[in-house]
């Protein structure tokens, strides 16, 4: 008797202590995410409540519909509606909700035992290649991009990278620890004779639990989101709003042995909206933007953010991440030290 009482108490305590994660209903997910297209049939999507649209799709079975929603389809359905952070169960609930809207008009076929493999495979293949190009946001040491070239080139580069990282400890952009991330009353910009200054949170208190980086705030913000150490709001009022992420890479070739630049929309759309850059900073058209490092260093193009709020361009390999063919890359000369 006493044991079972204790168990009840513990469970009750846990319920009080831990937030009970309310799962979003299919209707909620539909309203927030799916309705953008499925309300009006945008891009040929099956409309809510329209039996004619859904009949051929429902005939393939609920399991296949789940796969389409989760993995996307080549016809235009983005995986999870573009909201990769949605749990699978919620996506399925939204599908159920949409099917329920036509259940009188259409009878969904019995769920198949094995989900159709063709559709998800097609979507995966399409995504595989661009993922190779995706730069890894390295934390401490920048990792070389997936190099299809011989190992000798990459290993020698890695060796010099290691020494470059040590050497960079004297770099102006890397101040010694005693001078970085100072609390507001000591940081030279805030007025220490102001009472408000002393009430402000010192940065290190917040940064101690976040993944580190070599420059800027010394915090790897992309990793911080990836590891769910922080979850900044996408909407001012709604803490649960999901970002609309687009996965599209743009490779810009550069002269010389410097690796090519790979610009990933994915990491940027986690934080930003299309309108932040388009068209004021970048024209959304291939060949329409003349970008040079000189411009970036002076605070234009990529330099509007990088070098001011996002990591500064001393982190070359974060962007210059696509190695050229070995035929073009000369053997790197080590620093005369």
């Amino acid at each position, binding site marked *: 008797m006493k044991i*079972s009482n204790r168990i009840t*108490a513990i*469970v*009750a305590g846990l*319920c*009080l202590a*831990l*937030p*009970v994660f309310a799962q979003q209903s299919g209707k909620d997910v539909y309203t927030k995410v799916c309705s953008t297209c499925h309300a*009006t049939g*945008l*891009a*040929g999507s099956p409309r809510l409540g329209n039996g004619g649209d859904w009949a051929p799709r429902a005939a393939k079975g609920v399991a296949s519909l789940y796969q389409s929603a989760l993995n*996307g389809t080549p016809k*235009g*359905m*983005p995986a999870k509606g*573009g909201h990769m952070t949605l749990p699978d169960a919620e996506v399925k609930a939204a599908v159920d909700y949409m099917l329920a809207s036509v259940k009188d008009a259409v009878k969904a076929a019995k769920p198949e035992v094995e989900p159709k493999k063709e559709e998800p495979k097609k979507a995966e293949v399409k995504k595989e*290649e*661009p993922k190779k*190009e995706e730069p890894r946001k390295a934390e401490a040491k920048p990792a070389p991009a997936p190099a299809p070239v011989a190992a000798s080139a990459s290993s020698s580069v890695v060796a010099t990278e290691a*020494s470059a990282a040590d*050497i*960079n400890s*004297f*770099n*102006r952009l890397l101040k010694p620890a005693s001078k970085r991330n100072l609390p507001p009353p000591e940081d030279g910009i805030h007025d220490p004779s*102001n*009472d*408000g200054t*002393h*009430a*402000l*949170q010192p940065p290190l208190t917040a940064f101690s639990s976040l993944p580190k980086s070599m420059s800027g705030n010394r915090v790897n913000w992309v990793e911080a989101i990836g590891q769910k150490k922080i979850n900044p709001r996408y909407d001012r009022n709604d803490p649960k709003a999901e970002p*609309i992420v*687009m*996965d*599209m*890479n*743009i*490779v*810009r*070739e550069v*002269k010389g*042995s*410097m690796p090519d630049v790979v610009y990933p929309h994915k990491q940027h759309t986690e934080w930003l909206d*299309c*309108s932040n850059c*388009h068209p*004021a900073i970048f024209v*959304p*058209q291939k060949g329409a933007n003349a970008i*040079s*490092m*000189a411009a970036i*260093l002076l605070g234009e193009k990529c330099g509007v953010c990088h070098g001011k709020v996002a990591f500064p361009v001393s982190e070359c390999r974060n962007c210059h991440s696509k190695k050229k063919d070995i035929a073009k890359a*000369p053997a790197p*000369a080590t*620093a*005369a030290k």
Partner: protein
Amino acid sequence: MEKFILKAGLLAVALVAGQGLVAQGAIAQESAATRLSAGKIDKDQLLFNMESVGKLLESSSAARQIESSKAPEAMARRDRAREIYKSARASFNAGDLEKANSQLAEVRAAFFEAVRLAAPEEVTAKKLEADYRARLDSVNALLGAYRRVASEKGSASKTVSETVAQIDKSVAEAARLAQSGKYKEGRTELDRAYLVAKAGISSLRSGDTLVRSLNFASKEEEYHYEIDRNDTHQMLIKVLVEEKRAGNPMLDQQVQGFVTKAKELRSAAESAAARRDHAQAVKLLEESTVELVRAIRNAGIYIPG
């Protein structure tokens, strides 16, 4: 049996309470503001705050707004704020810091109310219009891109034209609202068009990789590219190497040697370009940049050439 019901009831209550806590974020949030108000009141700080609030009441942009609006309610509120300010001053002079501090807070609250009553739309309307125009630019840019990408990919024309039609409709509606001065509503309408355009492009472009290859139409173009590259490396020296140069005179001399050579090569290149000999200019610029790269490497920072 009863004991079981009791336990089940307890569990149910706990669940509900837990959800309630989640809903409200019930635990009082600590913040800079709470820390500030919890601190001891310092006389000098309070005096400074007094002065600041005085300025707020009389000479700030908000004060000017109240005066120019001539709204009677706003003026009345502001007078009320002035009264409380006078007594706050009195409390301060009498040495009652606590009272003065809380009265000061009242002054602020009353004054802010006055501002809200003073027709701030005159000041804030410009931003609404600017926001509307910015959003319109974005919608147009995305729409243009969508059309272009759709035709490039040969996407199903029916869906494309439907999407475009929907966006156009929203934009027209928004323009109609904007014309009658309703920029806020216009912006809301544009936001709808914007989401549709965003979703449209996402569905077309998701998973793609585009390559912008380096093709120069002429040597002259390549020359301009090389000038940028040369500029970049000069700036990189400033950004990466400056401090080390200052601390190490020998290094400074070495780097200066490279930099001087680079500058010579660059002026040679510029004169070659003036002669329209861009091929030669490009070659000289490449050499100049190599010198700058050497300078940076000499300082101990490895960058690829």
